[in-house]
């Protein structure tokens, strides 16, 4: 039953893409809407029957279909994966319905690419096989490339190419890492397999030097995707140029492919590398938090501001994961979900403004509360969700990420051996203040203050000039359709904020499994310093090429 549902999750969007290709163009948006709603329903059924909520196991457990070379077409996820699946399937219909007025030409391709994108994203979260994972992971680039390149803003060409190449280049290294592990495993075991669990089990028994380099390879792709500072520069550009729904999915789900990759593949496969590089990665996270927050402060373009804020926020998320304890990692997964919800919602809100005023420049817009109180309500709501107001969704994840980092200190006061500690958390915590700063500046400019509309916009839409024209059939304030998109998001944000317990309880066992190998390595690292003894040769290729039987 569960395997049928998981297969259905992949097949349905593909079928919808086919249907869109064949059906008349005026039906495209409806096919996309109903297909994504259907996928959401299937994902709910999948989650309902999912047995791994309490023990962190991966389900369905069946081996899948072998397709040669040791590759198995097998699907399954742990609780974290299921949550990210739900996030994806929940955001997709909203993004589709949100596109009705924004996209007016080449509808068939637009909705078709989105269907393929959904299938690819779900493929990543459902993958139990490294090759399935990698294929789906890379395939997300293609639809997103076309969505940006065709439907994007003025600079869409360079933005889409940079997005494609940069992330592609990164994931090539990840692929190299995966193939290396698989090859080593094949040498040791005598048969090829790409089963993620078996690869991780094998890789975590490799020599420290190998784990170190493998971890770097695996991280390379994920770090670009997350994106981790300083590999983030494709993101503001891509967000800035992407159509609204593209930004929603990009921020909501695509970035989570990176964090999920770290969680699911990089950390469990090469724990020694994870421990060895922990400090460096944490420093990068913190730099990302602080530097991009300061950059947010000086943005004029509201979409770029939210894009940079994603980098800052994902710094918190990764810092939680890299704290290598249950509190931080649980918070990190919460953060993945909640960043998707609140940032996705913010991009939707910004898109609604862009459709009305054709600008995202905060110097040209201001005091919109007077004109659009309903929109303003949602904007303020999601902004506060994004800055981590307790009672809304963002808080718990952020708090636990920081707390995890804080308690992960070498003296192990709380009984957790850790490599980071209070000072990391204090510096990262300044991100809380900076987030309030740039987000409230954004609200102060866009929502509050004296009314400011772009040149030519008339108060009640007399219909000439650009800016506030009603040619799109959009009312001054939000339409029922737009309110209908935002309300489910707001309800979910509030519900998670008021009752995060079920999620936390489901996440905790899963992250514990992922991090199972860490406590002993961390302890050793704290005691001995480096785990990786200096290799005889500085050349990584030589270190990697050491025969497998030297592993102890």
């Amino acid at each position, binding site marked *: 039953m569960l395997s049928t549902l998981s297969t259905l999750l992949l097949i349905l969007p593909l079928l919808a893409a086919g249907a869109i290709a064949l059906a008349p163009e005026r039906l495209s948006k409806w096919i996309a809407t109903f297909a994504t709603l259907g996928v959401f329903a299937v994902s709910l059924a999948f989650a309902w029957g999912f047995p791994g909520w309490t023990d962190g196991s991966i389900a369905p457990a069946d081996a899948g279909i072998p397709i040669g070379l040791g590759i198995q077409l097998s699907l399954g996820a742990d609780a974290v994966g299921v949550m990210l699946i739900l996030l994806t399937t929940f955001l997709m219909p909203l993004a589709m319905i949100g596109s009705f007025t924004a996209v007016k030409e080449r509808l068939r391709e637009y909705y078709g690419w989105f269907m393929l994108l959904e299938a690819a994203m779900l493929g990543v979260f459902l993958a139990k096989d490294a090759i399935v994972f990698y294929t789906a992971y890379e395939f997300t680039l293609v639809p997103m490339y076309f969505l940006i390149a065709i439907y994007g803003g003025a600079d869409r060409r360079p933005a889409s*190419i*940079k997005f*494609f*190449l940069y992330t*592609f280049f990164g994931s*090539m290294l990840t*692929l*190299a890492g995966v*193939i*290396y592990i698989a*090859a080593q495993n*094949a040498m040791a075991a005598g048969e090829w397999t790409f089963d993620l669990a078996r690869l991780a089990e094998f890789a975590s028994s490799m020599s420290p030097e190998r784990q170190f380099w493998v971890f770097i390879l695996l991280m390379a792709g994920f770090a670009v995707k997350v994106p981790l500072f300083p590999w983030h*520069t*494709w993101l503001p*550009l891509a967000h800035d140029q992407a159509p609204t729904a593209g930004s929603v999915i990009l921020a909501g789900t695509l970035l989570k492919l990176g964090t999920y990759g770290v969680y699911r593949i990089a950390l469990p496969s090469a724990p020694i590398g994870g421990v060895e590089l922990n400090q460096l990665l944490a420093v990068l996270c913190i730099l990302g938090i602080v*530097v*991009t927050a*300061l*950059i947010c*402060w*000086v943005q004029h373009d509201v979409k770029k501001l939210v894009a940079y804020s994603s980098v800052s926020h994902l710094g918190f998320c990764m810092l939680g994961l890299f704290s290598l304890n*249950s*509190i931080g990692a649980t918070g990190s997964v919460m953060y993945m979900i909640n960043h998707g919800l609140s940032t996705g919602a913010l991009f939707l809100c910004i898109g609604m403004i862009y459709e009305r005023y054709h600008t995202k420049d905060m110097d040209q817009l201001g*005091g919109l509360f*007077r004109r659009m109180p309903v929109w303003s309500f949602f904007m303020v709501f999601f902004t*506060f969700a994004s800055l981590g107001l*307790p*009672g809304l969704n963002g*808080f718990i994840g952020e*708090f636990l990420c*920081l*707390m995890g980092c*804080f*308690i992960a200190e070498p003296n192990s*006061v*709380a*009984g*957790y051996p850790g490599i980071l500690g*209070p000072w990391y958390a*204090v510096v990262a*915590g300044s991100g*809380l*203040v900076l987030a*309030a*700063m740039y987000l*409230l500046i954004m609200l*102060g400019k866009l929502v*509050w*203050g*004296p009314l400011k509309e772009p040149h030519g916009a008339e108060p009640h839409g007399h219909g000439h000039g650009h800016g506030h024209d009603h040619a799109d059939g959009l009312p001054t304030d939000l339409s029922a359709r737009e309110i209908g998109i935002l309300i489910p998001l707001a309800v979910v944000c509030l519900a998670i904020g*008021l009752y*995060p*317990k079920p999620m*936390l*309880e489901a996440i*905790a*066992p899963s992250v514990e499994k992922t991090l199972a190998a860490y*406590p002993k390595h961390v302890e050793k690292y704290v005691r001995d310093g480096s785990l990786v003894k200096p290799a005889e040769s500085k050349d990584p290729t030589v270190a*990697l*090429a050491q025969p497998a039987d030297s592993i102890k």
Partner: protein
Amino acid sequence: MLELASISNLANLTPAVIGEAASAAIPAAVPSPEFAWAGLILLLPAISAVLCGVCAAMGVKNKLPGAITAVALLAAFATTLSLFLKMPQDAPRVIHLFDWVAFAWTGQGATWTSFLAPFSLYVDSLTLLWMLFVTGLGSLIAIYATEYMEADVGKGYARFFGSVSVFLFAMGSLVMGGNLILLYLGWEGVGLASYLLIGYFYSKPSAVAAAKKAFIMNRIGDLGLALGVFLIWMNYGTVEYDALFKALAAGGEGATSEWSKAAIPYCLMLGAFGKSAQIPLFVWLPDAMEGPTPVSALIHAATMVTAGIYLIARTFPLFALEPHALTVVAIVGCATALVAATIGMAQYDIKRVMAYSTVSQLGYMFLGLGVGTTFGAVYHVFTHAFFKALLFLCCGAIMHGMAGQLDLRKMSGLRNVKGFGVISWTFLIGCLCLAGFPFTAGFFSKDSIIAQAFASGNPTFTLLGWIALFTAFLTAYYTFRVWFRVCGGPTKYEPGDEMHGHGDDHGAHDHGAHDHGGHGHGGHGHGGHGHGGHGAHEWHPHGPRLAINGVLLLICAGAILAAVPSYLGEMQHQPNWVETMVSHSSAAGGIPSHDHAGGDHAAHHALSFTGIADVHAATSVVASAAGILGILVAVFFHLINRGAADRLRAALLSNGLTRWLPLALENKWKVDEIYHVVFRLPAWVLGHVLHAVDKQIIDGVVVNGTARLPAELGRLFQPLYNGALQGYAATMAGGIALIAAWVFWIWMQGG
């Protein structure tokens, strides 16, 4: 009660010793599901907030949101009152409502294996005391606001009352929450309400800026609080008060380290200083006066800003463990009291004077906590809530009737203006309390703080006591400067216009320039720019009606009656009611005893020049004298001889040596400007620099440069580059082949 007695005997010892005894003395909480209805105190404002939101969404054009809020808050007050009457106060009660944040892990050798923060209430007498005045004043001020905000009916009315309801919910969670995470929820929730209400007149850039500043300054404090919570969990494995106090009583079992224990109070302190506007985070509170005056009275005077005192009182056992923490609290409080009072002396905007006086009085409360009298601090919170709310509501009523006039140079003798009688005389009562006039509530509460500063016998505290006495003199002076200028003297006034909007459809309405039904000032009913007093229409100030006057009288009665516990205490030799309340709570560790059997000779000598042996009596006399002297100075400069004040200022300004003094005071010691130059500007510049680096160097040189590298190499393979993506994809395929070859090579090596 037994424990209480033993604590009392420990007074005048060092705070550390008191604290250890105190933490041992906090009784274990009794789970009390039968009091689950106490959750209504939080639920009612939450429902009211939702209903106000519904009203706003439906465009309700009457006073319904105000009525809903007032009824909900009155019901919450009634619930609090019945909880107070019904609940035995021998031990704290924990009322578990539902699980909120909760998860566990196996931990593999870790000391703590769960993180639990249920949505539960921790109700002891400290909670009840706080919630009584929060919900009581909250409902009265909501009633006041139904009239005060009536010009905004159908516009911001629902938004205003919705935010007030959110505030009451958050304040309730802060005070009643059974763990530090729930306190944090309330802590940031009141910050949100404060943000929304300070920025209520959203078309005014100054209001928007003030709202932003308040939230950001508070966030700095919130970070401190969060770090404090991390440290507490790290050391004690819990964030729930009950479990925390048990762990403290047991000596803090588990793996703990000295530095991390010692750092706890300093982190919490930062949070408290942010929320309660103390140095260095005090600058947001005066700006918060941009909000409508009922909000200033409720949030920025009576309730929210006392959350810092609540936090320290609640976690007092943690403060008592660290010897220097309370001293720091005392020094910061005393310094803030002095600095804010000096600024308050030189402001002309009466609301700003009151704002600085709030900062200053909050400083007194922290001084009280620091010198080891939680009772004095809490009692001052309690009396201050009434008289400062009263003072703000009087200021608001004056603004309301005088077209937004707040400048004390432009109003005089209002006591004789028709309709301003209630305002003037209740204002006087409030001023007497604030000035610490003998036998008013403010006198008793302030006195108990100053007396303890001397009684502690610690030379630092004695010095702080003298500063506090000097500040009391300044307080009396600036308070009566306002009253004599505005209500005393010959009757003379001009209407204000500074608070007006600029003719837009939703101007700033925090003033009286509207057509108040029944008063019929036809000349100034036109939207946001009723510049009364000019044009063809004659302008009259108009007094408030029943809702405002009634609330003023009720709160005035409260301000007077707040002294009753002290009278009963003095006359019947019973413990002061507030003291009893505090002594049954986690703040019990800071209650000084009444008898000075021994060990504090130094304290007695500190004030011995008065010739009175008892340090409390001596302080009372000196403090009364300071207050009365301040009032007399104000009488001279602001009632009898108003020209003298201006001449004095001119004289000070003309002398090169003293020139800085009036300038520094009037410019608020330039703290905002200093912060701007030291923190904000460098960060802003850094932001620009980083943005440029990000764009030009990280992206421009490194990323694009790397990306161009294969393109340059690719010129060698020109035919591949016929189309951008296809070409790159082909290169990638080549790359994959290379990597595969490399892996194969490794495999061969290994095999």
